[in-house]
Every structure is written in structure tokens, then in C-alpha cells.
């Protein structure tokens, strides 16, 4: 195929330079898909054809599901191939000296429109090829905890809680505050920990751009000498599993001992915050706090916001499941990353410990360090408004791009080995 060979010829010399080859793929031309990606698309499309044939003979739910997943890729690839074929055809028409003038002008026009359409098709193909995050369809929990910066961090954490609640409400995601602990002090606006539950399916995918350390630079309300302080608030977005795991896919079913997210109840220590003594009608304890400890990982979750111990226990389990699932997923990603790093020598990855965004009040700006985007209307971000949408959207694109880059890198590494 013509375009493919062009694409190769563009890529080859740059790869030889060993200068961030991944950037090169993207800057070369977005309409030109990398050969690795194209190969992948072809393989998947071939698989789809095979599965469809098999489905024609006999129906099988598993095959149907896989075919359904692959169908969009196959369709977009077909569109892409058609567009390229027509470009080739039009070009040959133009280069043919026997073509008359009228036809020539028509062909030029068609060629232009085909050229314009190609980048969008490529883009769609690229998106379709990115593997979905395993938790993408799940609701989520969002934890906010102040980091370095004392009172000021607590104050800003409170503002971030408000920001996300407003954001979720505006997007129709119905946020529920599961836990809101404030520091003992003169007022209630110093957060020490908060957890919001967003029950909408797919909320994890929307909010996972927010995991990481958020930095704030401003003159705090508590500052008397007018100095600017820098403090940090950490945000964690965790997947929220439904209470009854059996409704989930087998891979995510936490009640299934074979699942990656299974928690053995034997490994969890349950503590009531107050010890025994006479119970039942003899006493009327209002303490309902509960603490769960996952012994192998020493993960501790405590919950005391509800007046019913039963409800606290349910929520604590939900949070423990969420934390362990996220940790296990992260461990798996880390493994992959190690693999890629070994091959390529450094691929950017934002973990939960990395600073991802700065809110600078003095300059009324918000900068996301992953994408480099800066928004100069800080209020539209802190109110959970469209500014935040813009930032999150840019991060989502960045995440998709890095995912593709990593995939290409992996495929290239594999190819090199072969």
C-alpha cells in the first residue's frame, strides 16, 4: 500500500536518531497511522471477520461479545482503507495525461475532500484501538486528603471537595459524600479527609484524570504577612464495585476467588472502635465506628460517618475493595511500565505521588503539568465549571495518546525481538 510505505519512509530516519521516536510518530502527521497501529488494526479486523463467520454458523455469547467489541475497529479500518484507495485512484487519474480538463478539476476537488476526511478517520481508528481501562464502566470513589502545608492544605482540600461536588452535580453525576472529617479547630472548613461516592456508571473513566497531587499557590487566609504559600492536596480516584459482585464480569467479580480483585475475608481484621462488655438491652451504645485492616497489605479503612454500624461496615468494605483493586491495578500497570521502560528507557507515567496540577491564585491560573494546558479563569475551575471540563478533556486526550504511544512502543519492542 502506497500510504503505508510513505509513512514508513517518514518514520525510519527519525527512529534511527533515537530521539524520542514516539513524539515523531505524532508530529509526522496525525493522518498517518503508525505501522504498528495499522498492523494491530488489521489483525483485529481479521479476527472480527473470523468471529463473524463463526457466529453465522452457531451463536455463542462469548464470541458475540468479542465480535461486538471488534466491530467498530473493523468498520473504521474499512472506511480508512476506502479513503486511501480513492486517494490512490484519484492520484493516478491526475497523473494520467489522457484525463480531460473537466475530469481533472473534479478529481482535484475530490482529492482535497478525501485528504480532509482522512485525519478524522485516523483519529477515530486510533481511539478505537486504545484498550479500555478495566474499571472504565464503574462508578467511583474520590478521596481528598491534604498533604504538606498544614492548615492551608486543609482549607484548600475543603475547596476541592466543593469543586468536585459542584462539578459532579453540574454533569448530572449525583455525588454523595461518604466521609467528611474535619480537623478540630476554630471552624469546620479544614478538611482532614473526605470521600465522595459518584454512583453513575462510567464515573471512574470521567474522573480518573484527577488522581494525583494538586498544588496550590496563594496567600492563605491564615497568613498575616502577605506571603504566598505552596501546599498540596492529594486526590485519589478509586473504582467502586457494586455490593453484589456476582453481577460483574468474572474478571471484576470480587467474590470469585479466581478474580484479581478477590479479597479473602480471613485476611481482613474487623475492629469495632470500642471493646465489649455487656451488650444488647443492657446498654445503648451510640458508637458505630468500624475499622477494617487488610493484613497482607496493611491497608486500613475506618468509617464512622453513619449512625448505624451495619451501614458503616458496608461502606468500609466498599472502600477497602476500592483501595485494594486500585492498588492491584496500579501494580499491574507498574509491571507493564517496567517492561516498557526496559526497552525504551523512560516513558512518562503519572503515579499517585506525582504533582499533576497547580492552582495559582496570584496569577489566577491553573496549569496541568501533564498536558501543559493553562486556564486563566481560575474561578471557572474552582466552581467545577467549564474550565475544569477543558482541563480534564485535555488530560483525557493526553492519557489516550500516551496509552497509544506505550502500545506502539510495546509492539515495536516485540517486533525487534522477533
Amino acid at each position, binding site marked *: 500500500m502506497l500510504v503505508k510505505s510513505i509513512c514508513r519512509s517518514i518514520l525510519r530516519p527519525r527512529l534511527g536518531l533515537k530521539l524520542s521516536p514516539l513524539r515523531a510518530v505524532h508530529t509526522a502527521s496525525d493522518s498517518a497511522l503508525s505501522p504498528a497501529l495499522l498492523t494491530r488494526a488489521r489483525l483485529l479486523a481479521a479476527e472480527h471477520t473470523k468471529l463473524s463467520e463463526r457466529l453465522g454458523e452457531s451463536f455463542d455469547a462469548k464470541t458475540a461479545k468479542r465480535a461486538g467489541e471488534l466491530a467498530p475497529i473493523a468498520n473504521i479500518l474499512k472506511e480508512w482503507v476506502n479513503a486511501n484507495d480513492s486517494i490512490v485512484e484519484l492520484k493516478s487519474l491526475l497523473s494520467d495525461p489522457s484525463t480531460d480538463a473537466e475530469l481533472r478539476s473534479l478529481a482535484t476537488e475530490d482529492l482535497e475532500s478525501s485528504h480532509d476526511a482522512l485525519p478524522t478517520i485516523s483519529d477515530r481508528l486510533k481511539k478505537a484501538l486504545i484498550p479500555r481501562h478495566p474499571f472504565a464502566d464503574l462508578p467511583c470513589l474520590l478521596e481528598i486528603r491534604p498533604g504538606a502545608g498544614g492548615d492551608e492544605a486543609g482549607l484548600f482540600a475543603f475547596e476541592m471537595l466543593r469543586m468536585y461536588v459542584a462539578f459532579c452535580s453540574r454533569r448530572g453525576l449525583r455525588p454523595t459524600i461518604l466521609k467528611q472529617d474535619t480537623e478540630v479547630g476554630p471552624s469546620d472548613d479544614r478538611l482532614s479527609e473526605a470521600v465522595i461516592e459518584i454512583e453513575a456508571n462510567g464515573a471512574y473513566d470521567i474522573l480518573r484524570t484527577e488522581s494525583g497531587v494538586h498544588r496550590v499557590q496563594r496567600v492563605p487566609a491564615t497568613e498575616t504577612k502577605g506571603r504566598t504559600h505552596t501546599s498540596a492536596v492529594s486526590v485519589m480516584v478509586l473504582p467502586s464495585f457494586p455490593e453484589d459482585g456476582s453481577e460483574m464480569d468474572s474478571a471484576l467479580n470480587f467474590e470469585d476467588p479466581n478474580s484479581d480483585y478477590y479479597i479473602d*475475608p*480471613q485476611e481482613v481484621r*474487623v475492629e*469495632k472502635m470500642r*471493646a*465489649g*462488655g*455487656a*451488650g*444488647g*438491652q*443492657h*446498654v*445503648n*451504645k*451510640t458508637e*458505630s465506628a*468500624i475499622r477494617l485492616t487488610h493484613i497482607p497489605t496493611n491497608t486500613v479503612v475506618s468509617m464512622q460517618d*453513619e*449512625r*448505624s*454500624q*451495619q*451501614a458503616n*461496615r458496608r461502606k468500609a468494605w466498599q472502600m477497602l475493595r476500592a483501595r485494594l483493586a486500585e492498588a492491584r491495578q496500579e501494580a499491574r500497570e507498574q509491571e507493564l511500565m517496567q517492561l516498557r521502560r526496559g526497552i525504551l528507557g523512560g516513558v512518562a507515567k503519572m503515579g499517585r505521588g506525582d504533582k499533576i496540577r497547580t492552582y495559582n491564585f496570584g496569577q489566577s491560573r491553573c496549569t496541568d503539568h501533564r498536558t501543559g494546558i493553562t486556564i486563566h479563569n481560575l474561578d471557572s475551575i474552582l466552581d467545577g465549571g467549564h474550565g475544569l471540563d477543558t482541563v480534564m478533556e485535555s488530560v483525557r486526550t493526553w492519557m489516550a495518546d500516551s496509552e497509544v504511544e506505550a502500545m506502539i512502543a510495546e509492539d515495536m519492542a516485540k517486533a525487534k525481538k522477533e
Partner: protein
Amino acid sequence: MRSRGYPLQYILGDQPFGDLEILCRRGVLIPRPETESYTYQAAKLLRQMALERKGTSNSPDQARPLRVIDLCTGTGCISLLLHALLAPHFQQLEITGVDISPTALGLAQENLEHNLQLGQLASRAGTDIRFHRADVLGYDSDSSVPSIESILQTKFPNFGTLDALPPDQESGCDLLISNPPYISQREFRNGTTARSVRRFEPKLALVPPYSGSGMEDCMPEDIFYHRILTLAFKLKAKLTVLECGDSHQANRVVALHKRLASAESGQFSADVWPIREQDLADNGFHVTDGSRGVIIQTLR
């Protein structure tokens, strides 16, 4: 008020119980979290039993409603939570809550309506659950309070007849559940019972009245269990769930059941619950004194 030990639930006016919100008022015992656990366990066992029945016999069980008697219902919390837990699994339910206190019965009815309004109960709960005033012990034969027998006779036509009908037939009661007064006079005074409970919650719901007759072959604080177990035999209850004050009392009740059971009343399994460490932990019981429910199942 709180500093004098006035219960938080009376100040706030309610207490969560499962997913329900139970209104609380002076004169009626506040629901305890342990009772919540016993109720969940009872509902779980009823569902298991129904599944087993479906597995062994092909008789269409849907024709007969699942019958539940809740003695000493107080706020009605057990009856209401059972309905919330069982309604999705049983097409027909008949839950009868019984108490001697008119104040309690008024509040129980209010709780039924309150949770219907909150949407925590299916609308059929309004007709499935009935609260009745009756004296479970029946010491005063001349009092104006109807005896428990008179109530049960209207619900179960075969009540008390000693015919040899197998217990799973039409006449049976599926669950007899109760959290009766179980504190002894001594434990009420000696500090075992918290001051807040002693001063502000109704003694009627905590300490069984002194019988005086001395006819019962059990300790004074166990007289409710004696009565309820006798009723369980007459009702041919398939499942009996009783909350006790501590594990000693629970063991006494198991022994009492063995004494009262006669050859023709059938075969039973009577156990103290929860025993398994995991069950204790899962239900938030303290390991040393948590096991104080008695669960009796009729074996076939």
C-alpha cells in the same frame, strides 16, 4: 440532656435499622445493632429454607404466604426490617407484630407508615404487616389485655391442636422471632445495665415481671423464653430466633428447649449464634460475649 445520659436516639427522634429509619420515643425500647444482626440472619435462613424446599419437593409453595410472628415488637423494627428483606423473595407475606404496650404499638404503626413514605418498604407492607396488642405471658387472667392465644387462634386455625399434621403443612408458622425483656432484677441494679438505659428506657421492655406463682421451672429472667418456646411448639414454628442477654442465658434457653420438647413435637436443631469467629466479626459482635442468639430449626 445528653450529659445526664439521655439517649441520643430520643433526642434525634430516630435510629437507623438496616436501611430503615426507626422513630424512637420515650416509653419504647431503642433498637440495638445486635437485633439488626439477628434479623438479617433470620431472613437469610428463611430464604435458605425456601430454596431447600423448592429443591426437595415439587409442591407449588407460592399458594401459601410466609408467616412470621414477632413477639414483643416494641418499635416494630424486626417486623419492618424482615418485610424489607423478604418482600423481594416471597410473593406473599404475613407478618404479625405483638406487644403489650399501647405506646409501643402506636409507634410501631407510625414506623410502618414512616418507612412506607420514605420508600424503604414495598407498598404491600401496609397490608402484609399487622400489629396487635396482646399479653405474651398472660399472668393476669382477668385483665383487659387479650391473651396471646386469642390472637394466634385468629391467625392459625389449627393453633394448639395436637393433631399429627407434619409441621410443614398449611397450618405452620415459618418464623417465630422475639427480642423479649431478658434482664434480671439483679443485673438491672448492679451496674451491668447502663445508667442511661436504666433511667430513660422503659423497664417494661427490659426486665420480665416477677411471676410469683413459681410454677415455671426456670429462672425469673427466663420466663419469656419459657412461654415463647411453649408457643413455638403449639405453632409448629419451623424456625425460632430469640435474642438473649448473654451466652449463659442463651445456653440456658437451649437447655430449656430440650427439656420442653416432647417426642411427638419433632426433631430440632437448637444452637447458639453466632459461634464461628467470622460470623462474629462480620456482625460486629465482640468475641467474648457476642454469642447470645438462639436459633431453633425444626428438622424433617
